[in-house]
């Protein structure tokens, strides 16, 4: 127990007496954590952007006016069995007519022609949204069977197939790029933290060997460095979290203009705060402690 308190005392003493090196280590940890968090922000924005594009894509299935409710229900039941479908919005003939009137409220000529027809010329419409753009093809294929040729008038998919394919490719590439960037930055962060700690230990190699010669056990020597690593991690995480939250708050008004959704970044950070903080804390802590122990190993062979 005495040794435990001494280890903590030595760690605090080392931090204070070697303040410039301690501050530099914390600063580098902050810079690295900030770059990783910047990537999180980029990933959130990329995700939002691709989701926005994906949400804009839908496929409309227009039924013939003669299609009966029973026939339409059969199609809807079939579509409900597809897990790929996110939403299926159904508009009956009356709703379609109403929508048409609302859309063309300023065009008296069209509305007059519609009145002259004397009956509702529209069939029911089903608007489908899938989880991924590439799922549309499968849905449309299932509807392109002779069984439904009499009740389905048109499907808009054929017109937008090329656009959907293009968007699928772009979103996939953006996602891949962001994963690659994340891995790259994490690797850079890892290397910089590894070298910072190694240099910090290297500057103290003489002290480490002296402690050993005076009769200190390895754990009595390593202890203060482990405590320092824990404290550096806590300080850097706390400062980084505050900075990231502040930046997210600052960016949110601009982001909400683009994505028509408010507090995207702050909501993301708040809802994932436990995962983000714990993952980063554990990663930095394991890295700093492991690096300290590895870097010290050579100097303890006295």
């Amino acid at each position, binding site marked *: 127990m*005495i*040794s435990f308190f*001494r280890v903590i005392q030595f760690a605090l*003493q*080392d931090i204070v*007496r*070697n303040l410039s090196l301690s501050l530099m280590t914390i600063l580098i940890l902050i810079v690295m954590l900030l770059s990783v968090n910047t990537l999180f922000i980029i990933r959130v924005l990329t995700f939002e952007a691709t989701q926005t594009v994906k949400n804009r894509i839908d496929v409309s299935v227009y039924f013939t006016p003669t299609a009966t409710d029973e026939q339409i229900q059969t199609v809807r039941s079939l579509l409900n069995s597809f897990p790929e479908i996110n939403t299926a919005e159904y508009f009956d003939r009356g709703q379609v007519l109403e929508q048409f009137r609302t859309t063309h409220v300023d065009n008296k000529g069209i509305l007059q022609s519609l009145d002259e027809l004397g009956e509702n010329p529209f069939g029911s419409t089903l608007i489908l949204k899938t989880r991924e753009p590439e799922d549309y093809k499968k849905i449309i294929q299932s509807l392109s069977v002779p069984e439904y040729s009499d009740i389905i008038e048109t499907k808009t998919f054929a017109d937008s197939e090329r656009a959907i394919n293009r968007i699928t490719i772009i979103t996939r590439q953006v996602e891949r790029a962001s994963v690659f960037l994340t891995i790259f930055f994490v690797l850079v962060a890892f290397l910089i933290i590894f070298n910072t700690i190694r240099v910090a230990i290297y500057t103290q190699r*003489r*002290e480490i060997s*002296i*402690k*050993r*010669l*005076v*009769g*200190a*056990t390895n754990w*009595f020597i390593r202890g203060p460095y482990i405590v320092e690593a824990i404290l550096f991690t806590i300080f850097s995480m706390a400062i980084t979290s505050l900075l990231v939250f502040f930046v997210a708050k600052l960016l949110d008004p601009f982001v909400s203009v683009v994505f028509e959704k408010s507090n995207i970044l702050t909501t993301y950070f708040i809802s994932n705060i436990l995962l983000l903080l714990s993952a980063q804390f554990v990663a930095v802590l394991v890295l700093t402690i492991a690096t300290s122990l590895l870097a010290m190993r050579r100097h303890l062979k*006295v």
Partner: protein
Amino acid sequence: MISLRNVTKIYNRDSVGLKQVTIQILAGEFVCIVGQSGTGKTTLVKLLIAEERPTDGHIEVGGWNITKICYNDIPFLRRQIGVIFQDFKLLSRKTVQENVAFALQVAGEAQTRIRDVVPRVLDIVGLWHKKNSYPDQLSGGEQQRVVIARSLVHRPKILVADEPTGNLDSINTQEIMQIFKKINEFGTTIVLVTHNREVVNQLRKRVITLHDGRIISDQAVGKYRL
């Protein structure tokens, strides 16, 4: 107290530290190990504190068989031997008082005992007034006295000093030798490794002379003969 039997230390084919060295040092003895540079004096010190392992032979220090000492037992051996180095080996970011206290802290001594013993030891070496100074604020002689205080604070039965006066002027050298004599009078076995002719001749103690890794003379009351 210290026993070396046919100890050989070979670093590599071209560098042999010690060859078939046999030494018996009794409790309370004051022994000077002399020899020119590169004759194996520092190798002998390193073997005594288990910084190096012998290639062949048998070493016993203070009842410990350290020939094949386990790595984890080395700190416990070192807590029983006071070691003084030519380059002082003080912890630069600790004060004089903290450097001396460190030798007790590593051994898990209670804080009350540390508070009691450290001032007394610093007083013996005449450095209590500099207790809050850092090593780089002290002269060479003062730094060496801090090292002596550190090596004595846990009351070792053996004190090994490797060229303790190598970096000191003659006045400081005399002071350090007076301290060693006093320590020896209290019963501590002292192994003094030096190539300082004056020091050895003035002491008039047992002198073991090394040459090319071998003992060439061992006199009960000797002089520096090289």
